[in-house]
């Protein structure tokens, strides 16, 4: 997600850690001071995650991204059957105040889109790694996943990015 990240000046803001599962929260909730990063996923520097299982990769935006964006009020996604390209945009997320492009971490064919997000965009906030997934892609080149960040690397990336704002 091409969201320009920034951080609060407070020292304890956005402390990041790996947790086994994100906490489920109601769609509209107070901003949290803790963003979760899951093991077993790959992460892009534009704050999307990828979960590769078998021949399909599932893509969404990270907890860190949704935390910065605020409440999501609209998610614009492509139609199944289209293609995505690594680092190119495939959709957009709208919050109360801002619009952010969503970039795909990998290239491939879109095989499924999360239609639930049309009616319940807040799932991106409440469950960014599960119910808030966005598209499923059949990767055209699985080796593209190798250049993405693992959870520890992504956690460090977020800390550094926040510290620079």
């Amino acid at each position, binding site marked *: 997600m091409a969201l320009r990240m920034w951080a609060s000046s407070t020292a304890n803001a956005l402390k990041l850690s790996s947790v086994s599962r994100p906490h489920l929260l109601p769609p509209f*909730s107070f901003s949290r001071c803790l963003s979760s990063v899951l093991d077993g996923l790959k992460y892009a520097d534009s704050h999307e995650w990828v979960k590769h299982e078998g021949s399909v990769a599932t893509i969404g935006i990270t907890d860190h991204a949704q935390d910065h964006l605020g409440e999501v009020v609209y998610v614009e996604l492509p139609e199944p059957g289209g293609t995505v390209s690594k680092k190119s945009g495939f959709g957009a997320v709208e919050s109360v105040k801002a619009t952010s492009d969503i970039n795909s971490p990998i290239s491939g064919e879109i095989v499924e889109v999360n239609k639930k997000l049309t009616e319940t965009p807040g799932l991106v906030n409440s469950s960014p790694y599960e119910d808030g997934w966005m598209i499923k892609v059949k990767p055209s080149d699985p080796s593209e996943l190798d250049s993405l960040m693992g959870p520890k690397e992504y956690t460090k990336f977020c800390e550094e990015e926040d510290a620079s704002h």
Partner: protein
Amino acid sequence: MRGGLWQLGQSITRRLAHGDKKAVARRCFASEAELKKTVFHDFHVAHGGKMVPFAGWSMPIQYKDSIMDSTINCRENGSLFDVSHMCGLSLKGKDAAPFLEKLVIADVAGLAPGTGTLTVFTNEKGGAIDDSVITKVTDDHIYLVVNAGCRDKDLAHIEEHMKAFKAKGGDVSWHIHDERSLLALQGPLAAPVLQHLTKEDLSKLYFGEFRVLDINGSECFLTRTGYTGEDGFEISVPSEHGVDLAKAILEKSEGKVRLTGLGARDSLRLEAGLCLYGNDMEQHITPIEAGLTWAIGKRRRAEGGFLGADVILKQLEEGPKIRRVGFFSSGPPPRSHSEIQDEGGNNIGEITSGGFSPCLQKNIAMGYVKSGLHKAATKVKIIIRGKPNEGVVTKMPFVPTKYYKPS
């Protein structure tokens, strides 16, 4: 790269600086260290404020509460905003009112002492230089607040005209209240909470009225006004007492009045149908086009006497070519610059502000359309990322206002 609250701050800064080329360049390259800070800056940070550049200032766009929750809480309980980045000034002298009437569309002479109004500074073509709340303190003292992003050009404009006015023997001088800070306390709890901090009976101070009085031990300028559509106050407090006053307000409300940032403030003013200078009002937009005909005093419509009067009075007579209207829409929230089309696909205007309304839980927007297509219920298409979305023209405010007026 697009989006993010930081981007919002930047885009508003750039738009507010429109018309001042140097300011644009300067502000685009200002590092955070070069941003001005209000006296509340450390207080904001200590309370979880997320600071972003705004009109050359480091301002809180949000605190721990989400923008959604902050907006709703303002209307249900109350909000406390730091608006010290806005510029307060006083005009004094026997001829203060006639002087100001050359520059704004309001009937300044007709204001009773202790009352104020929203007005517009115009340029020679009738376009808006800035909007401002002006208050007559006494017949020879006028207090004004202008927008942060317009401060430099407003002050230059006033100074230029003041020189000419004084050269002809006019009696007017000014003072910029940089020793003061401005808080906006808005929402249903604003009056009950503030009443705890002053002995004067606030139930006798109505919307648009002004008093100089003691609040929490310091002399404040109090105006019953705001830019949220709610009942509330703008409080000019000596800067050295500002943080104490903010703390006292929050304490008296027992946590119900919340610190609230610019993000929610923008949602609130949009829900109230109020213009944001730089988005909905600019140098090429007249008050008539912006739907502020009501702000031109009756005598001023007859007499003119302000810059650009010929253009404005002609528009009054003939009607403007474009008009600001509100919209509801489906699909993605509209944003500034989204194209508006009629049902046949013809361009009829542009969105100037839009977003998702926290109170209504639907998309709202305002923009300009060709006259004739401005009636409520007119169907339109709003083009977002190349795709048309259903929209409909609607009257504003989107959320009813709750100004405290004599019943």
